[in-house]
């Protein structure tokens, strides 16, 4: 069993979605993939509603382009597993499209690009066909951002995959970022970035506990 080989050898499979989480914030990634906490807020709920449509496994053809929804992806070379929201096959060449929802801003595309890069690497390994491009689709603006799968992006995917794996094996949680990233983070209430901070707030609160 392939799955069991990974875990027995201490070679944890890394979820494609974890690449984006880690790129955005290592702690967010650890909260989801190490701590297995997931908190829903309005953005993730909306996201789920969008995904319910995208995430029905099916395939169809439109104007000569074959489209696969919810395609299972893997790379044995990097130890990546996951799913593509959508893969288009343009004359046989895979073109992954990753759906993003909520307040997705252009500057966050770089993090989604890492996930997309991971998908491209998986598709190359699975089909034996080079995947030069893909896209990130922002649901709220109905815009597609095309991403070129450059060699820089490929090395970034490789480096982040290794970092995520190390984190999963260590089972530890990086400290909170406690910066502007935290504002729209769906895990804010779980992460408690400002309350935890560097621990000094809790320390002084506890120190004052016994004095009136």
């Amino acid at each position: 069993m392939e799955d069991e080989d990974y875990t027995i050898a201490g070679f944890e499979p890394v979820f494609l979605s974890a690449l984006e989480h880690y790129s955005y914030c290592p702690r967010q990634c650890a909260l989801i993939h190490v701590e297995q906490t997931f908190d829903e807020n309005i953005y993730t709920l909306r996201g789920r509603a969008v995904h319910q449509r995208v995430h029905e496994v099916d395939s169809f053809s439109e104007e000569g382009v074959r489209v696969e929804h919810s395609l299972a992806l893997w790379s044995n070379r990097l130890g990546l597993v996951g799913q593509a929201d959508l893969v288009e096959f343009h004359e046989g060449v895979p073109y992954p499209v990753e759906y993003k929802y909520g307040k997705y801003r252009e500057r966050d595309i770089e993090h989604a690009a890492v996930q997309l890069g991971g998908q491209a690497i998986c598709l190359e390994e699975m089909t034996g066909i080079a995947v030069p491009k893909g896209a990130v689709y922002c649901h709220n603006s109905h815009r597609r951002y095309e991403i070129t799968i450059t060699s820089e992006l490929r090395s970034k995917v490789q480096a982040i995959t290794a970092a995520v794996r190390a984190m999963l094996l260590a089972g530890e949680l990086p400290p909170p970022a406690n910066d502007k990233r935290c504002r729209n983070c769906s895990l804010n209430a779980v992460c408690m970035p400002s309350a935890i901070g560097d621990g000094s707030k809790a320390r002084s609160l506890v120190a004052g506990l016994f004095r009136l």
Partner: protein
Amino acid sequence: MEQLLNTLYVMTQGAYVRLDHETLKVEVEGSTQVQVPLHHLGGIICLGNVLISPGVIHACADDGRFIVMLDHVGRFKARVVGPTTGNVLLRRAQHKALDDSQKTLAIARNLVAGKIRNARTIVLRGAREAEEKEDEAGLRETANRLACSLSHLERSTAIEEVRGIEGEAARTYFSSFARLIRADRAAFTPKGRTRRPPRDRINALLSFLYALVLTDCLAAAEGVGLDPQVGYLHTLRPGRPALALDLMEEFRTVLADRVALTLVNRRQITPDHFEERPGGSVYLNDSGRREVAVAYQKRKQETVTHPLLERAEPLGMMPHIQARLLARTLRGDLPEYPPFTYR
């Protein structure tokens, strides 16, 4: 976690709770009495002979809503739990902390400090509102003794010592509980704290409220992936939710005692809301439990500022926040467990 959802209490004997699409319907003798969208609810508590359909049970398990079954007097019987989720590493840390006497001591000590501070807050408020000089003096004396317990606590070096201080503080607090009652003292003066069974009206009221608080603390512990049986202040016993009982210590006075006192002092609860059984045990009756459940729900909606989060949140969220902070402490994110205290 972001918002406090309502708990539906179904207390009508023979009621049937079923799902109609995304709406929960409570039927009594074939006619719908209550209708509420499922997504407005954090959980369902059924008292006594209440039927609940598999559809409701499945939907609740899927979304992490709790269903708790209590018997007709509010004693815990069962709860519906979905698949084991969450964090095995957290549970490991929870067990390891129990084997580390310094960690156990630190957590238990802070929990008890929270409890004593919150008890003292209620006592001082009672002193300010007292109508008789004698009550005011008695309550101030109790507050001083609680302050003494707090300073003993700071110097405690063993868990047994912490438990001893907690017990003494609880006795001090209950010994002057009668002074906090201003209405109908003839009917509502407690004779100390009696449980299993409660032997006077105040104790019946408190026992029922504590069952409600415990249910919320259990849900809070489960919700963050903690093992509700592995506690630090409360010793481990098979079947005892020691961690939920630990978490509850900070909330007994804030969530339960306060509600009990308000109900009695405003004469919303009267002797008519109780029944006495042969031999001297006392229980709330059906209308009494309804009155209390409504008051408890209202209390949970009141907002307070959390001492560490420095953010206004409904009181009902506090057990969840504290469970989260305990989890964060166990996982090494926080240097010490910060208990919930309020002014």
